[in-house]
C-alpha cells in the first residue's frame, strides 16, 4: 500500500492511470454493441489499419502521430462498414484482407525507412503496447481526456438509439429510425476508441479490451443497461489493477491489463454459471 502511495506521487503514474481508466471505460461502452452486433472483428481489423497508419507516421517523423492515425482509421471504419453492408463479398473476408494488408504494409514501411536502431523493439511495442503509456506528455493526456469525454457523452445521448439499432435493425428501420446513420456513428466512435487504446495495450490486444468486459458482464446480467454499466465498471477496475500491477511488478502494461480482464471473465463465468442471473 505504501508503495502504491509512493508511486502515485509521480505525475507519469497518475497520467497513466487517468488515460488507462478512461480508455478502458470507452472501449467497454461500445464493446457490448460490438459483441452483440457480431462486429467484434471490426475492432481487430481497424487496429491493424491503425498500426499501418502509425508506421507511416513514424517514418514521416510526424511529431504528433494522432493527426495522421485518427483520420485514416475513421475512414477505414466507414469503408469497412459499407463493404460489410452493400456487397455480396463476405464482410469478414474484406476485413481480413484489409487488416492483414495494413499489418504487412506497416511492417514493410518501418523496415525499409526506419532509422531506428531498435526496429523489432519499435514494432513489438506498437503491436503489444509499450511503456509509452508511462511516458505520456501532458498534451496526449489532454487529448485523451477530451476524446474520451466526447465518446462518453455521445454514448449517453444515443444510448437508446444504439440499443434499438443493435437489438433489431430491421424493426428500427421499418419504424423510420435512420439505422445506417447510427451504424456510421458507431463505426466512427469505435475508430476513435481504437486509436486511443493503441497507446495503452497496442494494436493486437485492443480486441481484448473491447470484448472481454462485455462478455464478462453478459455472463451475469440479463438487461442491456445492467450489462453496459457492469462492463464499464469491470473494465475500469481491471485497467486500474492491471496498470498498478504492471508498475509494481514491472510487467508489460497492455498484456497485464488483458490478463486481469481474462481473470475477471473467469470469475464472472463462474458466478454466472452457479449464481442466479439478475
Amino acid at each position, binding site marked *: 500500500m505504501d508503495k502504491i502511495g509512493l508511486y502515485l506521487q509521480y505525475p507519469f503514474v497518475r497520467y497513466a492511470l487517468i488515460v488507462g481508466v478512461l480508455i478502458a471505460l470507452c472501449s467497454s461502452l461500445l464493446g457490448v454493441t460490438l459483441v452483440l452486433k457480431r462486429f467484434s472483428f471490426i475492432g481487430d481489423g481497424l487496429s491493424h489499419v491503425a498500426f499501418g497508419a502509425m508506421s507511416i507516421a513514424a517514418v514521416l517523423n510526424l511529431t504528433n502521430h494522432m493527426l495522421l492515425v485518427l483520420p485514416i482509421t475513421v475512414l477505414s471504419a466507414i469503408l469497412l462498414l459499407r463493404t460489410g453492408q452493400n456487397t455480396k463479398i463476405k464482410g469478414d473476408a474484406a476485413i481480413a484482407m484489409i487488416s492483414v494488408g495494413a499489418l504487412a504494409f506497416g511492417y514493410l514501411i518501418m523496415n525499409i525507412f526506419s532509422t531506428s536502431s531498435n526496429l523489432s523493439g519499435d514494432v513489438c511495442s506498437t503491436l503489444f503496447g509499450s511503456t509509452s503509456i508511462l511516458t505520456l506528455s501532458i498534451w496526449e493526456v489532454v487529448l485523451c481526456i477530451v476524446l474520451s469525454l466526447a465518446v462518453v457523452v455521445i454514448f449517453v*445521448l444515443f444510448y437508446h438509439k444504439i440499443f434499438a439499432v443493435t437489438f433489431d435493425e430491421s*424493426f428500427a428501420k421499418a419504424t423510420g429510425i435512420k439505422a445506417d446513420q447510427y451504424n456510421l456513428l458507431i463505426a466512427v466512435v469505435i475508430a476513435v476508441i481504437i486509436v486511443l487504446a493503441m497507446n495503452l495495450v497496442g494494436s493486437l490486444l485492443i480486441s481484448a479490451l473491447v470484448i472481454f468486459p462485455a462478455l464478462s458482464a453478459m455472463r451475469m446480467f440479463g438487461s442491456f443497461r445492467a450489462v453496459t454499466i457492469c462492463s464499464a465498471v469491470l473494465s475500469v477496475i481491471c485497467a486500474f489493477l492491471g496498470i498498478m500491477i504492471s508498475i509494481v511488478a514491472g510487467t508489460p502494461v497492455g498484456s497485464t491489463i488483458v490478463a486481469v480482464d481474462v481473470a475477471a471473465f473467469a470469475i464472472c463465468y463462474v458466478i454466472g454459471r452457479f449464481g442466479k442471473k439478475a
Partner: protein
Amino acid sequence: MAIITAEHLTLGYDSQAIIKDLHFSVNAGDYLCIVGANGSGKSTLMKTLLSLQPPMSGTIRFGDGLKQNEIGYLPQQTVVQRDFPASVREIVLSGCQARCGLRPFYNKEEKALAEQNMERMSITHLADRCYRELSGGQQQRVLLARALCATRKVLLLDEPVSGLDPKVTAEMYQLIKDLNKEGITIIMISHDIDAALNYSSHILHIGEHIFFGTRDQYLHSKTRRMFLEEEKGGEA
C-alpha cells in the same frame, strides 16, 4: 379512402421477379390476411411495405395521413441474437424510439405507453425478466407490445403464431382480433387458411394466381378451389 394502395407492384431480388403486377388496397380498420405457399414472396411484400426493400417497379402509396414510420411491425421469427441481454421493458420501450426523433431520452408519455402496452399483452409481470429466458409465446407478446408502441394505426404481422402451441395460438389470434376491433388496421401473413378465413375481412392470395378481395369473395373464388386441390394433391 385507402391508407395503403399498391399499384402495378413487381417484387423480386437481383432483377428476378417473384411477384408480378400486384394490386391491392387497404382501408382503415381492415383485417387483411396474406396467404400463399412458402417462398411465394409474402415476407418480401411486407419488407417492401415497410420500405426495407425497394420494389422493382410499381408504387406503394400511403394515404389518409398515414406516415411510413407509423407502422408497427412484428417480424417473422426475428433472429434476435440468442444471447442478447435485454429486459422486456427495454425492448417494449424501444418501440417508442421512432417517436423520439432526435430527443435522446424517453419522456413520461412514452414510458406510460410502454407500460400500458405491456398491460394489454399481459406481460407486466415479466417486465424485468430477460428476453432470452422467455418462452416463444411470451416472446411474441413482447414483440407485439413493442409493435403497438410504434403505432396507433397499422400493424404488420409476419406469421405471428409460428411455433406456438394451439392454445397460445388461439389466444394470439384473439388478441389480434381485439386490437382490430379497437380500430387498428391489421395486415397479417398466415399459413393457417382456416384462421385467416375466420378472422380476416380481406384476403390477398399470392402465388401463380393472385387474388385480392373480401373474405366472402375468396370463399367462392377459383384461386381458393385450385389452392385446395393443390394441397390435396400435395398430401396424396
